[in-house]
């Protein structure tokens, strides 16, 4: 309990922005685990960037050996994180490859392949010193030229995630252990982008030999890729030459794909697997009541929201959007979606996040909503449609609740629950919807969310445009002082609250559940499971 309290304390400080102002960059929690909304964020919508405080690191002396079986939420479908952006890919390749940096449990950026780094006065040149003696799983030493090649592929035309590196001007490798990254403009989030799933360091010869990395994976990480059977499992084996001394403890990892929630819970309870990711929220009480099972994780930063197609009538009228915002009862959404394991919010950040605008969650105001609708010319409401994800009940159930709530002001909405591909095409790309109930993917840096409101950005699927907001977003990205950044972001949030491109609903909790003999695992805020390299079996 003492440990838990300590972490809670730590966590609050991180959220408040007190602990993270220690980097040379001086940007505070300028961390970003993944790009924000937009087609790619949307594909990763269910991923949770949980802010952990149920960390369990003090588990005694690690015992090496054993194979850990983990029940995974989704099939990776392929293994190349430049070709596809799915959380499920990340949750496989993060064990195989290394990156320059990693997100630490306290949400700061720590070193992985980079031993240290320096940032120029103007904030535009980053110089990284690489670890010596790191080899790929094929035996070849990893050198700076590999980093240059990897980032060039990451930012190339064939990469679906190239927008991550939009602020990167060039990557250079002056010698084998030095990498220099030059930026076009100051970017407070670059170090955390270098810790993201797509920033893995890959060997060029493997790409050339196989065409791409969709079926092969040769990295320098703690585990060696052995086998991937689609929709079945991924088998990984300990890398005996891993550069972090003594790690990993496990002899191997078996990532077993158990997409069905019930199947995942059952697999853990019956002992078919030792651990599951995304413990189903409806089963939390059940899992807690089982003495052989331990949970790790807590509140998450993914925002679930109602968004409007502002290119269509009547949602181009701010009064209609405000009326809908007034009618929505967020508390009623929490139950059917996350079984109460979440926090309601009106701004696109968790209420206790450092950049969040402190704002009360208001009670629904039906009369006020009716008045606004009447003013907009719809005294009796209107007919419309709500589009949401068929696959994710935490979004489709929110849509069902909101459909019912809108009836109170005469808005009759037909519900379209569609497959992922349709959702990405119609809602997140082509403006082919009226109202959408959707969500964002993991983020740590506020810029990743705010960019969705900038005119013409791919993540701006609502078609929102406000020159003042555009200006503020640019200022926020360039600003390095966290207090000043927070002030800028609060201004933006105030404008968004008035203009309502999104009606933010809630942030969910995210948990991993494991048998009590699984020790040393730490829940990471970004949703990453990389601490499996520090996990061991006490049996």
């Amino acid at each position: 309990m003492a440990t838990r309290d300590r972490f809670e304390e730590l966590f609050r400080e991180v959220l408040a922005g007190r602990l993270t102002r220690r980097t040379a960059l001086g940007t505070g929690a300028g961390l970003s685990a993944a790009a924000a909304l937009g087609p790619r964020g949307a594909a990763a919508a269910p991923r949770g960037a949980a802010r952990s405080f149920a960390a369990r690191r003090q588990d005694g002396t690690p015992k090496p050996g054993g194979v850990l079986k983990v029940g995974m939420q989704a099939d990776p479908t392929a293994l190349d994180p430049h070709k596809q952006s799915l959380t499920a890919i990340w949750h496989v390749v993060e064990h195989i490859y290394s990156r320059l940096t990693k997100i630490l449990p306290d949400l700061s950026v720590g070193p992985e392949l980079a031993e240290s780094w320096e940032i120029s006065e103007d904030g535009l040149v980053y110089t990284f010193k690489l670890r010596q003696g790191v080899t790929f799983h094929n035996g070849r030493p990893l050198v700076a030229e590999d980093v240059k090649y990897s980032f060039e592929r990451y930012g190339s035309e064939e990469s679906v995630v190239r927008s991550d590196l939009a602020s990167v001007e060039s990557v250079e490798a002056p010698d084998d252990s030095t990498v220099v990254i030059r930026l076009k403009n100051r970017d407070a989030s670059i170090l955390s982008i270098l810790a993201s799933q797509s920033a893995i360091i890959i060997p060029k010869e493997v790409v050339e030999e196989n065409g791409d990395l969709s079926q092969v994976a040769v990295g320098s990480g703690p585990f060696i890729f052995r086998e991937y059977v689609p929709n079945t499992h991924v088998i990984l084996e300990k890398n005996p030459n891993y550069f972090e001394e003594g790690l990993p403890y496990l002899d191997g990892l078996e990532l077993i794909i158990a997409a069905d929630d019930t199947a995942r819970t059952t697999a853990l309870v019956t002992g078919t697997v030792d651990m599951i990711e995304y413990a189903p929220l409806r089963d939390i009480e059940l899992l807690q009541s089982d003495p052989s099972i331990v949970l790790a994780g807590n509140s998450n930063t993914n925002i679930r929201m109602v968004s409007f197609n502002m290119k269509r009538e009547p949602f181009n009228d701010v009064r209609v959007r405000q009326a809908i915002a007034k009618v929505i009862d967020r508390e009623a959404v929490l139950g059917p979606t996350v079984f109460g394991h979440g926090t309601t919010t009106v701004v696109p950040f968790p209420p206790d996040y450092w950049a969040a605008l402190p704002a009360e969650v208001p009670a629904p105001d039906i009369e006020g909503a009716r008045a606004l609708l009447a003013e907009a010319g719809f005294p009796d409401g209107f007919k419309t449609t709500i589009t949401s994800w068929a696959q994710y009940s935490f979004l489709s159930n929110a849509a069902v609740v909101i459909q019912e709530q809108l009836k109170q002001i005469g808005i009759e909405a037909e519900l379209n629950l569609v497959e992922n591909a349709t959702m990405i095409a119609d809602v997140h790309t082509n403006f082919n919807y009226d109202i959408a109930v959707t969500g964002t993917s993991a983020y740590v840096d506020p810029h990743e969310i705010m960019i969705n409101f900038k005119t013409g950005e791919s993540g701006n699927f609502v078609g929102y445009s406000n020159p003042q907001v555009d200006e503020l977003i640019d200022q926020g990205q360039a600003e390095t002082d966290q207090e000043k950044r927070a002030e800028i972001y609060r201004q933006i949030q105030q404008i968004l609250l008035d203009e309502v491109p999104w009606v933010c609903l809630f942030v969910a909790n995210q948990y991993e559940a494991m048998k009590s003999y699984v020790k040393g695992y730490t829940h990471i805020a970004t949703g990453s499971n990389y601490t499996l390299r520090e996990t061991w079996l006490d049996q």
Partner: protein
Amino acid sequence: MTSAEGTESGLSAEGGTATAGALTLGAAVRQPRRPTIWTTIRRQRLALTGALIVTFFAVVAVVGPMFAPHGPTEQFPQHRLESPSRAYPFGTDEFGRDILSRLLYGARISFEVGAIAVGIAGSLGILLGMIAGYRRGWLDNVLSLLMDIVYAFPAILLAIAIITMLGNSLANVMIAIAIVYTPTFMRVVRGATLSVRNMAFVEAAVSLGASTPRILVRHIFPNITAPLIVHASLNFAFAVLAEASLAFLGLGNKPPAPSWGSMVSSSYGFLQLAPWAAIFPGVAIALTVLGFNLLGDGLRDALDPRLRS
């Protein structure tokens, strides 16, 4: 069936000479007075049970919504996943919706799908089956082959494929189920037609110069209704089950419409937390299907002369 029992209830045996003719061709040919369908059913407890269950659910489908305590989509967020109580006799689901009310409205969907799908499948099957059975020859071969091809696919898989092509809506679910069950109707009708077409009365009608449509409608059809009724009853059960299965898979009615199958599908995940949310619609599906099966079996016993002892 003893002759004493037969005499007790000889009310309608003479009605419709053609029907009587067809039925008496079997073993009961020397019994001028036969039991009616109704008396036969009454005599068989299981068939009677089936009839009662079917009647009950049919009545519920028609008038049930009038007695529903709440709207089928009305949500009471304060009363989520509550166990059965006076206010919510069957408990509430994850949205705080009354399960009883949803079941009552859902019965209508099940029966609508059953009636319309069986209606379409029956009509198609009768048309194709009678033509094939009466005309024989190449037409029979082609039609039978086509139906065999359709029949070769697993029912639910074929239905999913059809819905994928037509689009996901309740109407298309009915069409898909109808297409899937047409071949069995066609086979039943064709077989019955084959056995009737060589009867003396058909020969008589032909020699009197009756047209083919007239012979099919006036002479053959009335004589093949018995197996058809049995088959329709059994298929109604299949159709209800197929609708529930497809709704379970997310096909058919859009949420929040109360389809029994989708009610089971959305709540089986928290069976440990709130078993009533999945159990009551599950029981409703099971009972309806059971009712139609019992009724179908009973009807077969009543109508098929070969099964009379």
